[in-house]
């Protein structure tokens, strides 16, 4: 069975969804990702969905779930590269993914994660 690869980039994890996301694949990703976050002690997760052109409410909910789970594991999730059509579909489905951070592309997503970490470490833990 195919899996979505999870790459480690410094202290972040990069997930690039390049195939059509069917439900089982989404559930497997959820499993794999939570395991990887714990194993690598990642501070952030980037999910690149720029090649995803079909979403349904299940995938939308799954994205929200992954973000919530990562937050519990102390990692920020940023969903990047969402296509206009996908964004419109999700909004029409009534899913605005309120708890999920978003960015235009991997680059700005990475920047966002760094800012978030700097802001958090500025709060007292020290550099």
């Amino acid at each position: 069975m195919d899996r979505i690869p999870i790459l480690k980039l410094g202290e972040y994890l990069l997930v690039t969804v390049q195939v059509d996301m069917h439900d089982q694949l989404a559930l497997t990703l959820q499993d794999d990702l939570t395991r990887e976050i714990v194993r690598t002690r990642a501070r952030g997760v980037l999910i690149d969905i720029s090649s995803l052109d079909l979403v349904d409410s299940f995938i939308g909910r799954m994205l929200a779930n992954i973000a919530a789970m990562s937050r519990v594991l102390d990692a920020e999730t940023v969903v990047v590269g969402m296509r206009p059509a996908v964004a419109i579909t999700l909004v029409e489905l009534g899913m605005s993914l309120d708890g999920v951070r978003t960015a235009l592309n991997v680059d700005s997503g990475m920047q966002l994660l760094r800012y978030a970490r700097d802001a958090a470490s500025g709060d007292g833990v020290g550099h």
Partner: protein
Amino acid sequence: MSPFTPRELSTILQTHQTDILADWLVRQSEAGAPQPGGEQRQVSAQFLRLVTDALKDGAGDRVDAPAWTDVRELLEDLSRARAREGYTPAQTATFVFSLKRPLFDRLQREVNGDRLSGAVWLTTQVLDALGLYTVELHQKGREEVIARQQTELLELSTPVVQLWDGVLALPLIGTLDSNRTQVVMENLLNRIVETGSRTAIIDITGVPTVDTLVAQHLLKTVAAARLMGADCIISGIRPQIAQTIVHLGVELGTVITKATLADAFKVALGRHHLVVAPSGAA
């Protein structure tokens, strides 16, 4: 007694073409033909000739039959031209209907008593069908104009302008309905991708009223832009609109709202770590 055939009508038309045409032109100018003169004469003569040919080829009173194609094309050009020039459908249809009188006069002379009613009935049917066809075309021409104007309006009213690197502005003019929201949203999202913008300012100075539906459409646009990774600021909220929003209990949530586009632009620049400073001379 044999029934009166279209072919016979064609023969009568052909034999007395000149007389009928002259008579018809008189009738047309009596009925207030829009463009008496050479052109009208030419079109009328051509129309008569085409109708004669069509009837000769055995065309019945069904004007949607292939035999009537040439006549239909002529009427199409005529109706479209007249619709553009602003004539009423009645004026256009009169072109065909005014042919009735000259034709009936001629039939009365050419066809003997018993068969006359059949002849008149056939002629009436053909001319009515052609007349109605012009009205239909006229209306279609108008509808095309309206549809084109609507799309033009839609395109004109939803420009997305780039204010700065990474800052887009969307000045909305007119009421936001579902159709327009769709177009606005698509335009905005596509421009966000093209320009890689992180901030979009939606200016509603030109939106006359904001009710719950419009607010919902606005929030949808904001949510979609956020999913793509761009933050939205809503600006141009007039005092009246601010009151309406509160009275209606519309919840704009976490969306930043500013009174003017300038204020919103300042916020956007701040997010991009940019400042506007006076030039060195001061």
